[in-house]
């Protein structure tokens, strides 16, 4: 009988935020009543001292949210009760400038989240989302000197209203879909990143997101602007404690990749098993720019997330690499969209998914080449791995080509674990669980190796525990 070592228990706690009894709670001082109406929307705006144009934008978006229908394709979202959600919640803590100023209580929670010591130091330059608001945001001095702005979205709006107004809602307008409208009406938190011309941000900018209250929706809004010739890597890690009531996470991310700039946006999402994770992420890439979405979806009840790239000017490049793990009772509806609007643009979508214990993972993608976008090249590959006979895997790729001078290739495969490989490993003395988890990790390797190291380790451990049946 293998001993459930202390180490394993720690790893479990560290990498799987769901298994964390006694997570520390911080009392919130202001919260709106449950549900959403025009009054609440104005209240949120007033509470944050927002300019009039933002309040008007929120109210208009709320009107759109009311009239838009729920999406009829994809997973069933009828169980979301919009009236049972608290849309805004303000924590007691004020914004902090350095790690030392972060209250002990919050540090304790980070401790329980298992953020490694080294990484905590690294958190200088990171924003942590604590109940809808960023509580500390420490920007490295060198970045400040370079003119890089890395603020919470609320702070960004306060300090740089002209910049925010110029870009906010321009890629994902409220009219885009019901959840984009909801986010525009009720957003709070998220990050605002501005990288000036020619500046290369060497270290990834990181933000931690947490839902810390049952039934509390999180509607963070992130806006990244990378000016000409700049480059930046933004990392978002999400985790949430387990609660019995359903919660909703509906974020919007907008990214502007200007001429010859490069942006990488990495997500490791590990919501608890009761969260509806419905996210709209979109980037516009200008001439010679490059956008890279790296998207790992684990946890949540239902995830619907399709990072999109609009290649707007010639020689723009886009890449989407996504990984999804659907365990018991989970539905991962992920994928990617690329729209080629200009000549000589290229894109790559690569998706890997694992379904286990009755989970269902889907790839839903779009490749569109508009007339005039000649010499566009597109390559899409989807690989799905099914670990048992009760799970399910779907692929829904849409390919729409209206230009002759193109090269588009799409490949998809659904497979189970190779019995031969399993037999080989077991004949070398590995248990079936170990052998399976080794093979699943191998399958995910293409994604893992592109992650920053601490996330790579986290994903590796999480997959090991999931596939060996260590959690459940």
């Amino acid at each position, binding site marked *: 009988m293998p001993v459930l070592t202390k180490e394993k228990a720690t790893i479990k706690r560290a990498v799987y935020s769901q298994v964390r009894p006694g997570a520390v709670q911080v009392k919130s001082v202001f919260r709106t009543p449950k549900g959403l109406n025009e009054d609440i929307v104005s209240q949120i705006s007033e509470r944050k001292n927002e300019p009039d144009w933002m309040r008007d934008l929120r109210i208009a978006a709320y009107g759109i949210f009311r009239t838009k229908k729920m999406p009829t394709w994809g997973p069933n979202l009828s169980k979301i009760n919009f009236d049972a959600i608290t849309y805004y919640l303000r924590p007691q803590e004020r914004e902090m400038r350095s790690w030392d100023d972060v209250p002990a209580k919050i540090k304790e929670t980070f401790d329980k989240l298992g953020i490694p010591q080294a990484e905590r130091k690294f958190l200088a330059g990171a924003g942590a989302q604590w109940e809808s608001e960023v509580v500390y945001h420490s920007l490295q001095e060198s970045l400040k000197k370079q003119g890089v702005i890395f603020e919470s979205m609320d702070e960004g709006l306060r300090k740089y209203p002209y910049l925010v107004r110029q870009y906010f809602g321009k890629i994902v307008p409220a009219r885009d879909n019901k959840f984009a409208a909801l986010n525009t009406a009720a957003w709070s938190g998220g990050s605002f990143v501005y990288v000036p011309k020619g500046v290369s941000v060497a270290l990834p900018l990181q933000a931690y997101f947490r839902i810390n209250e049952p039934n509390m929706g999180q509607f963070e809004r992130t806006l990244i602007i990378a000016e000409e010739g700049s480059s930046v890597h933004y990392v978002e890690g999400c985790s949430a404690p387990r609660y019995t009531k359903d919660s909703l996470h509906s974020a919007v991310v907008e990214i502007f990749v200007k001429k010859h700039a490069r942006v990488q946006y990495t997500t490791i999402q590990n919501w608890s098993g009761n969260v509806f994770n419905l996210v709209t992420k979109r980037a516009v890439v200008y001439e010679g720019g490059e956008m890279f979405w790296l998207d790992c979806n684990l946890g949540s009840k239902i995830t619907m997330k399709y990072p999109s790239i609009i290649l707007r000017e010639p020689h723009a490049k886009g890449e989407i690499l996504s990984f999804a793990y659907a365990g018991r009772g989970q539905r991962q509806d992920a994928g990617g969209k690329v729209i080629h609007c200009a000549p000589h643009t290229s894109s790559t979508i690569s998706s890997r998914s694992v379904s286990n214990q009755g989970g269902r993972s889907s790839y839903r993608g779009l490749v569109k*080449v508009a*007339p005039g976008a*000649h010499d566009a090249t597109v390559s899409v590959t989807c690989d*799905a791995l*099914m*670990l*048992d*006979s*009760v*799970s*399910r*895997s*779907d*692929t*829904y*790729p*849409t*390919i*729409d*080509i*209206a*230009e*002759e*001078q*193109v*090269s*588009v*290739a*799409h*490949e*998809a*495969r*659904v*497979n*189970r674990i190779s019995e031969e490989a399993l037999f080989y490993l077991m004949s070398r003395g590995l248990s079936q669980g170990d052998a399976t988890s080794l093979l699943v990790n191998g399958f995910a390797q293409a994604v893992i190796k592109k992650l920053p190291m601490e996330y790579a380790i986290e994903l590796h451990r999480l997959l090991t525990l999931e596939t060996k049946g260590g959690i459940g």
Partner: protein
Amino acid sequence: MALQKIKNGDLRVGRGEHVQWVSVVHKGWRIPKVITIILAGQGAQFEWFIAVSGHDDHSFPLDIRVIHKAPSTVSRISARSVLDGRSHISWNGRVIVEKGAHGVDTHLAFRTLLLSASARARTIPSLEIATDDVTAGHAASVDRLADDALFYCASRGLDHEETKKLLAHAFLSTDAPASLLSLLKPYDN
């Protein structure tokens, strides 16, 4: 059999049966055709090769559903289209492997060659797999005539029109079974 003569409806392939369809299509249609193939009996096999030559403003809206209900069933659909003029295809292929249909082997491929800037291809080859013991795949590609092939033919004295016909014919006949080859006349629109 010519595709435009196939009516909307279902085809059931029973236990141990092997059905092969071969379709060569030159004329388009307006109202989408919906064709469902049900592999109902163990060991049923279905193969379908489609070659489409689109020109002028012909459209080819087609929904193909393949449902694997029984174990050890096999399906292979390979569609190749060459589109010229303002012709367009709009194809929705959906392969469903139901629970308990172990040992299914399925592959769906939509390959398109665009010869004109106004031709348009919209394809959705989707898979819905509800059991683990399967080999399922699909492929889709949209390409233009390769520059090196055009150059090679030009250097051998062929004019552009002839080259186009030759390469289009070669594209349509790749992977085609012998029975289809005899039906494929040299590409000519």
